[in-house]
């Protein structure tokens, strides 16, 4: 019997809640919550709130927050004493924290005096901030003091016009929940819708204020508390509610006490308001059923008065409906259903589970994926060695699982090795086609491993044939004894199989025995590569170069001799300054060329050349002019 396990939450204690995960439904389904607080998350929340408090504000958050979660502080008397001690009767904030916290503790009374009342009443005016008005009104109502609701409404409306931010309006909504129901709360109720329009939609999954988690949680609390108080359904659509649930409960560790407090308040508001109660349904433990474990556990947060039923269960592979409108039975607050009674075939099933019974339920239809697993058995395993030309009859031997075949099978290049078998479901006898059916050959000596796939034919009979000649490249033509293993596996099988069926001796032709490239040596360091540096160009022997250097310089000597013979001389050399300067400058230019060759780059050279060149030019110009004058004069 399979029992679907659902955790029921007793709605008689509206303060107890735990939101359980709702699996995300894929496909064209309504949005379902993807975040929730599990029991451990709630414990963590309580833990954060239970930390010792040092001032009135943290005392307030802790005491009231824990009470929303259905828990209480460790020592109530101590807490009460703390509140009375820390109270500053002149401060509105102090009075608010103390009054609210004392309400949450039983038998804790804060002393009230006329001055207290006057201070609180004075805070209710257009000149105080919304927070001040809220705290004053809450303190007044918690302390049992009378207050004029209409005046408060007027002050709130005036303040909302001035303070238009999210937190202020949320606080105004909270204030309205403390007022008498006869007051005109219509204008403030409309603010819920306006505020909801300000929420940011993130990816269609989250809906939150840009001010953050705390603002969103406080808004949820305020909206639902006020809607309950005014008995008007809040203008939030089902999808919006789910998105708000995702936003508020996506964070599992909270930064501050006030954030934890806001989350606790939101959770309490969502689980016990009169209009929208999100419900969460999920499986407890793996969503798998089988013959040995026919129980499918499903948890949810819910009222006991509801009923859960499977609207339809459809096999994923064949799309046939296996179950329809089957109700769950409730046992110890847990919903159970027997699924294996219908003898479903192994595989995956898509369940559509609905929770009914309360019109407030939101997101009460869920898709769950359930796996039915089974055990497989191998039958009719026949091994044979078939001759290729079919001249010799086949020798078939049957092997039973888990034993190994007695003799070994020999196949050389003229023969094929064949294997046939069937896979059946142990419980139903139905033939199975699991995902993985591998045939593995393992050579013990060389460590080689070759894996093939066995394929089923149309009658679900598995066949495997090894053509020795054709497949020799996969075996690297290594003849020898190979251990044959059959591997069967699938997600829906509880007993995957690795079975050493037999030993097969394979003989290959032209064995190259490439012993070098074995898997063992594949990962050994390879031989070092010696880097060959670029060979320098072949240069001629130094003798030749030296000879030619001398040869190339020799015409200069010839030139000098020729000039001497011609009678070229420097007798006309005038020692005028420009001539000297010119020759010096020219010599410098030639020297610069040499320095350029050895040290400088083009830019530097051009710079120096410009300097020297201009001097040389000017001097040379002068000198040549003088020479020209002399020449023309002598003519």
């Amino acid at each position, binding site marked *: 019997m399979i029992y679907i396990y659902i955790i029921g939450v007793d709605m008689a204690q509206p303060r107890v809640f735990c939101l359980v995960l709702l699996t995300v439904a894929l496909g064209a389904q309504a949005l379902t919550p993807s975040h929730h607080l599990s029991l451990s998350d709630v414990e963590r929340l309580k833990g954060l709130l239970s930390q010792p408090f040092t001032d009135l504000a943290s005392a307030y958050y802790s005491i009231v927050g824990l009470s929303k979660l259905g828990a209480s502080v460790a020592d109530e008397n101590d807490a009460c004493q703390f509140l009375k001690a820390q109270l500053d009767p002149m401060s509105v904030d102090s009075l608010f924290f103390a009054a609210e916290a004392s309400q949450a503790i039983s038998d804790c009374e804060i002393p009230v005096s006329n001055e207290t009342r006057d201070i609180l009443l004075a805070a209710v005016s257009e000149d105080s901030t919304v927070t001040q008005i809220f705290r004053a009104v809450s303190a007044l109502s918690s302390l049992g003091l009378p207050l004029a609701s209409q005046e408060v409404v007027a002050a709130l409306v005036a303040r909302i016009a001035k303070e238009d931010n999210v937190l202020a309006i949320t606080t105004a909504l909270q204030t309205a929940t403390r007022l008498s129901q006869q007051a005109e709360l219509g204008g403030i109720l409309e603010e819920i819708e306006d505020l909801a329009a300000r929420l940011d939609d993130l990816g269609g999954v989250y809906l939150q204020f840009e001010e953050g988690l705390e603002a969103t949680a406080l808004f949820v609390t305020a909206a639902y508390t006020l809607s309950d108080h005014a008995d008007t359904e809040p203008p939030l659509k089902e999808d919006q509610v789910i998105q708000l649930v995702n936003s508020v409960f996506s964070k599992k560790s909270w930064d501050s006490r006030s954030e934890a407090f806001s989350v606790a308040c939101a959770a309490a508001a969502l689980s016990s308001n009169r209009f929208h109660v999100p419900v969460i349904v999920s499986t407890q433990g793996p969503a798998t059923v089988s013959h040995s474990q026919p129980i499918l556990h499903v948890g949810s947060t819910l009222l006991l008065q509801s009923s859960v039923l499977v609207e339809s269960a459809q096999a994923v592979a064949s799309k046939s409906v296996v179950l329809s409108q089957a109700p769950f039975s409730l046992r110890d607050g847990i919903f159970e259903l027997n699924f294996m009674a219908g003898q479903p075939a192994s595989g995956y099933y898509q369940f559509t589970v609905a929770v009914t019974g309360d019109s407030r339920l939101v997101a009460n239809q869920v898709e769950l994926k359930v796996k039915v697993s089974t055990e497989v058995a191998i039958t009719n395993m026949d091994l044979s060695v078939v001759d290729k030309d079919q001249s010799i009859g086949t020798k078939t031997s049957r092997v039973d699982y888990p034993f190994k075949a007695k003799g070994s099978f020999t196949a050389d290049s003229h023969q094929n090795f064949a294997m046939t078998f069937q896979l059946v479901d142990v419980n139903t006898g139905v033939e199975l086609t699991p995902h993985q059916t591998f045939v593995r050959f393992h050579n013990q000596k060389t460590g080689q491993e070759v894996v093939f796939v066995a394929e089923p034919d149309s009658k679900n009979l598995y066949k495997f044939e090894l053509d020795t000649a054709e497949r020799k490249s996969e075996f690297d033509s290594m003849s020898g004894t190979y251990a044959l293993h059959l591997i069967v596996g699938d997600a829906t099988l509880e007993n995957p199989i690795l079975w050493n069926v037999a030993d097969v001796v394979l003989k290959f032709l032209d064995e190259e025995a490439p012993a070098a490239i074995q898997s063992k040596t594949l990962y050994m360091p390879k031989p070092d590569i010696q880097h060959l540096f670029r060979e320098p*160009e*072949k*240069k*001629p022997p130094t003798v*030749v*170069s030296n000879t*030619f250097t001398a*040869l*190339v310089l020799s*015409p*200069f000597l*010839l*030139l000098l001799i*020729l*000039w001497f013979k*011609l*009678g*070229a001389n420097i007798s006309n050399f005038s020692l005028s300054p420009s001539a000297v300067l010119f020759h010096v400058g*020219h010599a410098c*230019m*030639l020297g610069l*060329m040499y320095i*350029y*060759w050895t040290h400088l780059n*083009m830019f530097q*050279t051009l710079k120096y*050349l410009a300097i020297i*060149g201009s001097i040389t030019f000017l001097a*040379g*110009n002068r000198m*040549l*002019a003088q*020479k*020209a004058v002399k*020449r023309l004069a002598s003519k």
Partner: protein
Amino acid sequence: MSNSVISVISRFLEEYTTKTSNKLKVVDAYLFYILLTGALQFLYCLLVGTFPFNSFLAGFISCVGAFILGVCLRIQINPENKGDFLSISQERAFADFLLAHTVLHLVVINFIG
């Protein structure tokens, strides 16, 4: 045939030694020197290969460039060509020669590597 060649050559040499002025002979000697240097460099390259090709090119082009500039100088200072170069005095020709050589040397040194 060879007779006429020899006679042409001997006639040419005779005319050359008598008619050309000393200045031009000086320049001719310089040109001959440049020619020899270039030819020897080329011979070396043929024998040994063009290994530092840039160096060979730098050296060879230096010789070729110098030869050309020398020829230009010779043309410009030859008094027989005065009609063609009315605005260019001998000094000016020499100054041009020097300037062009500066540029040539700059390029050659850059390329010689």
